[in-house]
């Protein structure tokens, strides 16, 4: 067992060594560029945080209460995202057939460690990349010292770990619940799909409950009175949130320079470590049983399959190759419950943000003749929309050519070119993202009372940016197909995956900033539209060129 741990721990080092073994200079340069992009994103988030706080600080009556409220919402969001990510990663780990050979060895329990490690690593790096600049921005604005900033990092890391662990526990609980129900009804109903459906329902209910608690019916009453009254009202309502206590510690650390924050951070970190060890022991003990339960399925070897459910098969009525690729993508998205869970989580969060806009506006309008929101709010709405589209593109578009590695023999030998396949994927994913995203974006603008003409400009820029994001993901997918993994979670952490994340987020920040400036200078929008259109044409041409040289198979090592 210790041998396997040794091998496992040396793996990341070997990956880096292998990566730098060839074309060392080019690869170091690529990593350097990537780090620069990440730095740019970090700086943008940092500046935006300071600007936002600066805006809030102008309202002397509300600002202190708002700081507390922001800390509460911020940690609630971090918890929900860690929880959701954790469910997706742990569910995927039980679906991997490639782990079968490890599970057949006496070292099978190492997979509990591997999965827990992978889960925490995938949650931590992306969140910390965004969260660190936010915390640094707050610390800079509030003028707190380095120790408190460090403790806020520790606290946030601990929260992400707790959120992830809760996701693992929820997944384990749903599997064991299905197992218990199976014994009650005398038929095995344990499956990945059912476990995920159960979690989707619970997650939607949980988010609805949190939303009900976190977003007050009447903001004016919520922030009525002096600071003491405001805090009292908020605490009475927000105390039911699972992150209430820890968010209060963050508030103490960064906004109040309160010494109690330090003590509580140490206690919370200790509790988190204890919880992490407990969950590892639990997972270690039950991993094999869960694996066995979730690997069981129907087994069709001939005609005698009367007990097994049949599906209404789709008959691909079109003859056009691109049309068939579109139909195939839609069918597979629909049949994969994990895909649907992704859409539910991302669109659900976007709708929750829209509902917040609606609640805030309706509330403001009750007290005046139409509240006018500052310009940056509209640019922020655009940035949020493009962020969600980037998250969907990272999950669905970027891995698309790598994910078809094992089925490449079907598409690769058929009389259809890789370019036709890429066009099919471009059309379907752009279509889905625009179909889902446009109504939500427009709803936000209508709710916030944005004028028709600027809203139209924003929508045009949004649509062109969606095409840009999908094209970028598609180009990287064709140019850098991964021959070793078809797992979207693993692929998103490869160098091309990180490049996509960085470029998509960096682009989103630039576009949103330009659109903010557009409100005071309309000529800029023409330039921006031209720029995005040019980039779209360039990426189309690049994708066409790489698709001509695309090979469906790699070197066969025998």
């Amino acid at each position, binding site marked *: 067992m210790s041998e396997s741990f040794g091998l496992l721990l040396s793996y990341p080092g070997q990956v880096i060594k292998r990566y730098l073994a060839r074309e060392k200079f080019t690869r170091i340069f690529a990593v350097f560029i990537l780090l620069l992009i990440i730095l740019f994103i970090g700086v943008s988030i940092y500046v935006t945080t300071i600007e936002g706080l600066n805006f809030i600080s102008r309202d002397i009556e509300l600002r202190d209460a708002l700081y507390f409220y922001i800390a509460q919402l911020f940690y609630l969001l971090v918890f929900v995202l860690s929880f959701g990510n954790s469910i997706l990663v742990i569910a995927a780990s039980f679906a991997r057939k490639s782990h079968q050979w490890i599970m057949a060895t006496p070292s099978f329990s190492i997979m509990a460690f591997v999965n827990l490690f992978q889960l925490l690593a995938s949650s931590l790096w992306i969140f910390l990349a965004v969260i660190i600049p936010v915390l640094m921005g707050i610390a800079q604005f509030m003028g707190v010292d380095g120790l408190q900033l460090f403790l806020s990092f520790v606290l946030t890391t601990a929260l992400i770990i707790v959120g992830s662990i809760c996701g693992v526990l929820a997944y384990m609980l749903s599997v064991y619940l299905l197992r218990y129900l199976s014994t009650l009804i005398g038929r095995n109903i344990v499956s990945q799909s059912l476990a995920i459906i159960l979690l989707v329902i619970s997650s939607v209910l949980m988010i609805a409950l949190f939303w009900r608690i976190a977003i007050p019916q009447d903001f004016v009453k919520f922030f009525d009175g002096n600071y003491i009254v405001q805090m009292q009202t908020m605490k009475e309502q927000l105390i039911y949130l699972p992150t209430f206590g820890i968010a209060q510690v963050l508030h103490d650390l960064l906004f109040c320079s309160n010494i109690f924050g330090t003590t509580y951070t140490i206690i919370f970190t200790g509790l988190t470590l204890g919880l992490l060890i407990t969950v590892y022991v639990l997972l270690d003990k039950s991993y094999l049983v869960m694996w066995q339960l979730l690997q069981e399925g129907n087994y069709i070897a001939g005609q005698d*399959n009367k007990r*097994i459910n049949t599906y209404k098969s789709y008959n691909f009525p079109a*003859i056009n190759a691109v049309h068939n690729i579109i139909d*195939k993508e839609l*069918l597979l998205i629909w049949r994969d419950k994990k895909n649907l869970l992704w859409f539910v989580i991302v669109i659900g969060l976007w709708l929750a943000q829209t509902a917040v806009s609606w609640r805030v506006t309706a509330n403001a309008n009750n007290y005046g003749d139409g509240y006018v929101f500052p310009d940056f709010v509209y640019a922020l709405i655009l940035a949020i929309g493009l962020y969600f589209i980037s998250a969907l593109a990272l999950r669905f578009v970027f891995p698309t050519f790598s994910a078809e590695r094992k089925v490449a023999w079907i598409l690769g030998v058929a*009389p259809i070119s890789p370019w036709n396949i890429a066009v099919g994927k471009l059309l379907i994913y752009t279509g889905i993202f625009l179909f889902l995203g446009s109504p939500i974006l427009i709803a936000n603008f209508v709710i916030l009372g944005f004028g028709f003409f600027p809203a139209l400009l924003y929508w045009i820029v949004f649509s062109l940016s969606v095409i840009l994001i999908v094209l970028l993901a598609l180009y990287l997918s064709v140019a850098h197909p991964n021959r070793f993994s078809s797992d979207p979670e693993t692929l998103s952490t490869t160098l091309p995956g990180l490049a996509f994340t960085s470029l998509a987020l960096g682009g989103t920040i630039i576009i949103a900033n330009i659109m903010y400036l557009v409100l005071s200078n309309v000529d800029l929008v023409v330039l921006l539209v031209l720029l995005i259109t040019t980039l779209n044409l360039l990426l189309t041409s690049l994708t066409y060129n790489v698709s001509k040289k695309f090979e469906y*198979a790699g070197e066969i090592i025998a």
Partner: protein
Amino acid sequence: MIEIKGVSKKFKDKTIIHNLDLSIKKGEFYALIGPNGAGKSTLIKLLSGLLQPTKGEILLDGVNILENPKEAKALIGYIPDEPTVWDGMTGFEFMNFVGALYNIPANEREKDIKKLLKIYNITGTEHQLYQDYSRGVRQKYSILAALLHNPSILLIDEPIVGLDPISIDITKNILDEFVREGGTVLMVTHTLFVAQELATRIGLFEKGKIKIEGTYKELVDKAHLTAKTSLDDVYKNYLAK
């Protein structure tokens, strides 16, 4: 007809196929045998258009696969060594999708699929998900999918892995009939008895080159072995040299 003219394939700086020339006539069944790592699967992937040659040209019934890939691919039926399909598709959807890629009209496809399923007696499995199929059923679907568009050339990488003895006999009959009707077959295999029974010509492939080729009888004679020797012994005899 398959014509391979001076084909080489390199992966980075490693050459897998060395300046290969090979011609397989219409109605011929050519079996390529050889040790692991010889380059057999790479060759079949080059012929099926899954890989591009570094040098040389490949003509399928006179059509250059590099210049006219769509036209050339329409002539091929490919049976892979690993019959992996999207887990979320039913067998019927998979066959239908493949048929649609080859421009077979939907109504014709349905009739053809029903007819093909009867060959292996797997009617009744077609509306269930691929993820639930056994290895054998998956292999049967991949063989049937390769036949759906009536190809003139079959490229086969290990045809009988996972099949039970009765299904192996059915597969041999399918291939035999295909060749008798004028089809061309190139099969890569380690299952030497199938090559011995079906192939009209056998090539021993090693380090990206054909070491020796001929009919089974010619190979036995060249090795100076007795007439009753199996291809297995012939193979070992040549490799020992």
